[in-house]
């Protein structure tokens, strides 16, 4: 499963539930898979003082992010016996309640799928140059900070 060219992980706008369903459906023919572990990031309507987050506008240094994601993918495949690993991250304006991150790891056994999914999520949050501007209902904003 090594690739020469980094895959594009970025999608414009929110990730639709139907896209996730299609992605699951496509793995039906891979009958060596015993477990899928999926993580979905959803935009929270956080309340800060008297303001409420209406949406997050995501931007990225795309070329650099794809190179780093490629390195993360290779490290995860080297560490875990995976069948596949898919990552999708939204760019642009994503409303509260919408999905902005979709990580999907599949393996013969559940532990590898779960551990690989969790580690991929941690690494991409820490290592990918992506930023989010939390837009409040009154049109002011605050730059998102990952804790």
């Amino acid at each position, binding site marked *: 499963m090594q690739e020469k060219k980094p895959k594009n992980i970025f999608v414009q706008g929110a990730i639709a539930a139907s896209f996730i369903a299609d992605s699951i459906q496509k793995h039906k023919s891979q009958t060596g898979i015993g477990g899928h572990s999926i993580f979905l990031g959803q935009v929270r309507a956080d309340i800060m003082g008297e303001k409420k987050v209406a949406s997050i506008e995501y931007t990225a240094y795309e070329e*650099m992010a794809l*190179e780093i994601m490629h390195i993360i993918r290779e490290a995860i495949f080297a560490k875990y016996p995976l069948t596949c690993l898919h990552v999708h*991250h939204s760019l642009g304006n994503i409303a509260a309640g919408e999905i902005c991150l979709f990580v999907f790891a599949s393996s013969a056994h559940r532990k590898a799928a779960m551990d690989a999914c969790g580690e991929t999520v941690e690494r991409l949050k*820490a290592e990918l*140059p992506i*930023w989010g501007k939390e837009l409040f209902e009154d049109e002011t904003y605050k730059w998102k900070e990952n804790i």
Partner: protein
Amino acid sequence: MEINLIIFGKLIDITGSAAMTIKNVADTAQLNEQLHSRYPALSSYPYVIAVEQEIVHANTPLKNKDTVALLPPYAGG
């Protein structure tokens, strides 16, 4: 000699622009110096510098036409 500077996230609020050309900077230390004198507020924000998509921490020489990025803390996911 000149470099292409690209700016992301919160830092754009300070520079007012997501991309600019910077002349006469031989290395990243000189670049920081020039940026901090133009945008004093920048010096109080944490960021790292990437030269041609590689993060550099030590002072690093710059070549003509290099793309240099200012990256505030990431917030993906």
